């Protein structure tokens, strides 16, 4: 019996023992995690790259323009030859106008369709509508921009006399359409994860579907819904091509939405497509605007993260 055992192990196990290459195996086992870790480091380096790039160049900018003028100035006139003015408030105002309009469009439609998909729609309807929303989310923003400029603006001009060709309204609405799928999809996820037992409890005492949706599901999923809106706001703030094409390039610190505006992103585009030379104040100004933009979106993203973590319902 023992000899039989010896015989057997002389075949495959022997082959294995012969061919085993411990050294290369060991090196590979050690090297791979290090290699993969360095891939993971790239994402950290990217963040550092962004932060340092923005800080350094913005610092360069503040050597030329005072920081209080930048933060509190109500006039953004970088190209006015002798005495350029770099007060960022008009750009922020432009950005916020567009964002606000976008939110007014996207929130009711987004949450409404999320309720429909999660509470009313049949499985079949959901399976048809969700991919279409994905398509909508995948449309490049340049296409939306073109749509805003050549379709939405002319229609709005028919409806609102005095609306300029470049204005805040048209890009605002289209940015709203752009962020709509995001709100719908994330809100629907939040509502779908509300357990059915909660719905059944309300339905069993005779509540209508609408009452269940508004009084049971919506409150339970509220943190997820708010987080989705905040994330969408962040996207709207950072949106570039729609506002560059349809928003104009006239930074103004007011509340007018029918007139030409300029957002932070559109300013960066304007300078980039122009020929402001490397090292000029205008060149550095795009970094200071970019930095401001970065802070805005970062705060929004962290806020969304915080809301969904902090107020997560535990079922």
């Amino acid at each position: 019996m023992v000899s039989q055992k010896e015989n057997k192990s002389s075949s495959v196990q022997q082959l294995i023992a012969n061919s085993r290459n411990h050294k290369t195996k060991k090196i590979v086992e050690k090297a791979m995690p290090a290699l993969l870790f360095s891939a993971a480091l790239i994402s950290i380096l990217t963040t550092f790259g962004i932060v340092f790039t923005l800080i350094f160049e913005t610092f360069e900018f503040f050597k030329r323009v005072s920081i209080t003028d930048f933060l509190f100035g109500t006039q953004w006139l970088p190209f006015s030859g002798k005495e350029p003015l770099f007060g960022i408030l008009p750009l922020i105002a432009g950005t916020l106008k567009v964002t606000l309009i976008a939110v007014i469009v996207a929130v009711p439609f987004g949450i409404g369709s999320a309720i429909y998909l999660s509470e009313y729609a049949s499985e079949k309807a959901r399976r048809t509508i969700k991919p279409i929303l994905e398509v909508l989310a995948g449309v490049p923003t340049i296409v939306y921009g073109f749509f805003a400029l050549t379709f939405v603006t002319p229609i709005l001009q028919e409806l609102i006399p005095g609306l300029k060709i470049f204005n805040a309204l048209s890009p605002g609405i289209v940015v709203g359409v752009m962020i709509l799928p995001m709100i719908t999809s994330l809100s629907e996820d939040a509502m779908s994860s509300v357990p059915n037992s909660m719905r059944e409890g309300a339905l069993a005492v005779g509540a209508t579907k609408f009452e269940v949706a508004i009084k049971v599901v919506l409150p339970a999923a509220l943190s997820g819904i708010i987080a989705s809106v905040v994330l969408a706001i962040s996207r709207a703030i950072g949106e570039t091509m729609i506002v560059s094409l349809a928003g104009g390039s006239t930074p103004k610190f007011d509340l007018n939405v029918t007139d030409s505006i300029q957002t932070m992103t559109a300013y960066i585009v304007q300078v980039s497509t122009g020929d402001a030379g490397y090292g000029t104040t205008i060149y550095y100004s795009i970094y200071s605007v970019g930095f401001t933009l970065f802070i805005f979106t970062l705060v929004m993203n962290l806020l969304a993260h915080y809301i969904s973590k902090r107020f997560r319902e535990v079922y």
Partner: protein
Amino acid sequence: MVLKIQEEKTFVKKIQTGAKPVTEVAGNIVYDTRNLNLWYGDHHGLKDVNLGIYENEVTAIIGPSGCGKSTYLKTLNRMVELVPIVRTSGEILYRERNILDKDYTVEELRTRVGMVFQKPNPFPKSIYDNIAYGPRIHGIKNKKILDEIVEKSLRGAAIWDEVKDRLNQNAYGLSGGQQQRICIARCLAVEPDVILMDEPTSALDPISTLKVEELVQELKKDYSIVIVTHNMQQAARISDRTAFFLSGEVIEYDKTDVIFQTPADQRTEDYISGRFG
């Protein structure tokens, strides 16, 4: 109670010293577990386990859920280390070397000790690639040798006739019972010394279970088998020796017929007569 512990200790000692434990002279010891303790974080999962596992026998490990039987099995090929918070003390001698030693390479151990899992887990590859997986990772590339190994292993797992015409099909197309025998064949492909089976039939229908049980009987001619099972009848049917675990302790270990007919410990009797578990 004190008396019980005393009894256990002498009993355990008998096995440890390799002296004939109860009735007959046993074969060679493959695995000799000495004072094995294991912790999952703060939970003491295995308490002072002493067990000898014999060559060319089927050793069954039974006990209620959570008694540590699967944990013990996974300690035998150190799969238990995949859970990061596990600590062990004591020794497990496999062929006279302590596998819990830091410098014992697990890959080498697992090449010598195969494992069959609770749920059939073939890879989503062809049947051929499933069987050839082991030899290939250990550096066997010769196509002719691989062909031979695949056929031999599939024959060994009594599934060759069912799959010989579709070796290139995905193993996922097979039935649960066939998948489990593919997994056994995959295990045989590196011609291991020991096969560990973790409730291998718990996910199978009765007919497939029967086939696997017959296979186990066949395999013990060439391999030493340790099988964890939830099913006491199965242990009684196929094993030569049975160990009864309870809350991480070995309560009783003996020839299977002794355990099932004249258990020494009341708790063993209670368990096998279905009073708990």
